[in-house]
């Protein structure tokens, strides 16, 4: 049995995914004495642990790896650096201090730290949150559940499901189906086109699965188990597709439930914590990195963020970070822009963990992306983007400004 969890440490990291593990290893490399990573799952590794497919690891290990092998390498690297990793423990509350309330098999404990990193990742939007009608039979599940059943338990939950969504994760679900000998009967996307880029979007055709765009699921049918879905096609006509499963994929939202009940400030756009360019939250003893910051990025991107925020945390512990007060508040004007982060830039000019603003649109957008400070335009460029595609703008475009309200807007192309 592992020795009991230390009740105090220099840094406590919540979440042993790519971001958390990268940060922890970086902190140790920078001489921080005690770094502990807490994860509620049975083993460390985060989402990649469940993703028995490529591509992972190109940025971090310069090798093309499957998720579990990639997760194992991240864990190995962190352990070799001297990180104390604890799985099967759940952080249940964040308090000023910082102090974490943690549920373990032996009951509740408190852990005091000098700094905390939040790296709790994202979750998929459920059938309930999408308000999909019909009955509530078995066989309706998110990608994570499907992958857990297939890869961790070797269970084949259905033979001919429909897959809702066309994000990268939806194609991950298709790969899992192929691996398990499951033949999806349709892939269903409410938008006008597949969300994920080529070549992932070729996959349904390669697997002979009809991709139905502009189509909504009106209702799920079945008593004990799914029997059919009713879809509404582009013209408004409805059609019944017999099926024995529904995989509800994507539409990720940050796993921020801990934040919502804490003293930390939440950003309505990303659904994650509001941070500055060092990854600091509204309480500067708390930092955040990885997909918790926003839905949703690749493992490599999250890993890199973790590494850079880990570096900033080591600086913070050594008293080398600028004060977190004041600064420029950064927002998006509204549609078609969905979010921007970091949401605050302090002591402008100091190199941060984030060299770029990250933005996303909520609908297909073409026009001119501009940054205004207190109403006056500082910068602009052409923009053409689709939902769930990464948009980055260097922090430098903010110039030397150190207070005020900066707003990203999308205007007409010629403005």
């Amino acid at each position, binding site marked *: 049995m592992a020795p009991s969890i230390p009740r105090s440490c220099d840094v406590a990291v919540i979440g042993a995914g790519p971001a958390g593990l990268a940060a922890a290893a970086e902190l140790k490399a920078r001489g921080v004495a005690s770094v502990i990573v807490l994860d*509620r*799952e*049975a083993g460390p590794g985060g989402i990649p642990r469940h993703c028995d497919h490529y591509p992972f690891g190109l940025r971090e290990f310069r090798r093309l790896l499957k998720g579990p092998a990639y997760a194992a390498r991240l864990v190995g690297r962190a352990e070799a650096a001297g990180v104390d990793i604890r799985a*099967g*423990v*759940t952080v*249940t509350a964040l308090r000023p201090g910082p102090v974490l309330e943690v*549920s*373990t*098999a*032996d*009951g*509740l404990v408190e852990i005091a730290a000098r700094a905390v990193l939040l790296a709790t990742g994202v*979750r*998929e939007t*459920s*059938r*309930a*949150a999408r*308000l*999909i*009608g*019909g*009955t*509530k039979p*078995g*066989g309706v*599940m*998110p*990608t*994570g*559940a499907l*992958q*857990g*059943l297939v890869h*961790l*338990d070797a*269970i*084949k*939950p*259905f*033979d001919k499901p429909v897959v809702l969504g066309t994000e990268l994760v939806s194609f991950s679900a298709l790969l899992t189906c192929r691996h398990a000998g499951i033949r999806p009967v349709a892939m269903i996307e409410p938008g006008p086109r597949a969300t994920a880029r080529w070549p992932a979007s070729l996959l349904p055709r390669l697997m002979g699965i009809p991709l139905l765009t502009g189509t909504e699921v*009106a*209702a799920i049918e079945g*008593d*004990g*188990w799914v029997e059919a879905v009713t879809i509404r096609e582009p013209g408004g006509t409805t059609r019944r597709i017999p099926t*024995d499963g529904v995989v*509800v994929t994507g539409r990720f*939202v940050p796993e921020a*439930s801990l934040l*919502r*009940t804490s003293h930390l400030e939440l950003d*309505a756009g990303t659904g994650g914590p509001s941070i500055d360019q060092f990854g600091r939250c509204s309480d500067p003893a708390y930092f955040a990195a990885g997909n918790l910051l926003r839905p949703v990025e690749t493992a490599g991107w999250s890993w890199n963020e973790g590494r850079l925020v880990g570096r900033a945390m080591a600086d913070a512990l050594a008293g080398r970070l600028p004060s977190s007060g004041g600064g420029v508040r950064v927002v998006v004007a509204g549609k078609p822009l969905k979010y921007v982060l970091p949401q605050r830039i302090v002591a402008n000019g100091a190199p941060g963990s984030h060299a770029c603003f990250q933005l996303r649109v909520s609908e297909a957008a073409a026009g001119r992306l501009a940054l205004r400070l207190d109403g006056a335009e500082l910068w602009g460029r052409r923009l053409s983007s689709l939902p769930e595609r990464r948009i980055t703008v260097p922090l430098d475009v903010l110039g030397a400004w150190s207070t005020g309200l900066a707003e990203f807007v999308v205007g007409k192309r010629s403005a």
Partner: protein
Amino acid sequence: MHEVDITQPDLFDVAIVGGGVIGCALARRFTLDGATVVLLEKAPDILDGASKGNSGILHTGFDAPPGSLEAACIAEGYREYLEIRERLNLPVIRCGALVIAWTDEETAALPGLVDQAIRNGVADVEPLTAAETRRLEPGLGAGLRASFRVPREYLIDPWAAPHAYLLQAIVNGAWLRRGCEVTGGDFDGTAWRLATTLGSIRARVVVNAAGLYGDILDERLIGRRDFTIRPRKGQFVVYDKPAASLASHILLPVPGKTTKGIVVCRTAYGNLLVGPTAEDQEDRREAALEPETLRALSRRGEEILPALAGHDVTAIYAGLRPATEFKDYQIRLHADRNYVTVGGIRSTGLSSALGTARHVHGLCAAFGFSATPLAEPAWPMVGMMCETEQRDWQRPGNGGIVCHCERVTRREVEEAITGPLAAGSLAGVKRRTRVTMGRCQGFYCTADLAAMTRDRLVVPMAGGGHGA
């Protein structure tokens, strides 16, 4: 588990047909009063009918029709729940309710409702001005006119309560047969022989607690229908736990003619619920969810509590009320045939169950059977899922959390699939523990749960016969 045939008595004192909250409370009452009882439920697990989805409110009965049987049963059920709940480890959230008027017409109706409450023996209601109401619930939306407070309207756990009633019956000797549909029967002048899908079962007295099928069962057993079930659907939208802090009271509207209207309240599990609708339908089985209705519920919720906008929805569900053409409960004694119908327990059965059971037990005195109440009945404790009480994840030896969203521990799941009232299906495990019912809907815990329950559920979770 008393589901094997070996030593089943040849003749029971009482057979209760239906494992809803009413059947469970009846099984408890008759068992504690010394009868040998069998409860017959056609579904693989109990709570498969009307009792599957309700609002979880322990009503005082302030708005029941004064003098009705319903009002009497609610008052008695309410009293007994509070009396016994600690011994069964059942929670209560003493939050009180506000009945809120949003229009002139509703404001005009308030004094009448206050008067009705007083006539129902709920004398501690307090009329409040808009300002006073807002002081109690600062999150309420614009347009609020006035309200009155019903301090003793409470929240309880709608699944733990019936489980506890039935578990207490079973540990004190009652029998449970699941997957056992009563298809017919004969009364020979002294006892019944019921035909079921699990063979024939003999009992001196039969109690029809078949909820949404009450009229059909009457037809099958006594060849007549004194009422017709008219299922009335109620849809709900449930918000994630952070929304629960937005309201402390149960927020009730001024009731309409046929329903209590759209309620906003917390749940025992720490969520916030908006619903139910009241929609008549023919189907007794399926309570279909309709996206437009759910969206309308969300909008209504956001009018009542504007800060609800932006909170995550974690669950949607619908329940069916066993309504009839009558307003009051349809409890009928057929003394010549040792038969009682306990039907039409429409929208207050969770609150009234214990009282209804006492009332029915009293009626059965007419059959002239005298049993001796158990001197020292056992009081089993059910698992505590209520967020305002200490939960298992906060205690040592819990085995770790399996379902992160609802913080369900390995020990809790293990307990749900063992013991005399072990779950027979995943739905049953969910109702006992709330596993997979949270915001991620099983993203993380499904695989773990499948491994834990493999070969231990009557209805397998996945991959066992469903793949075809």
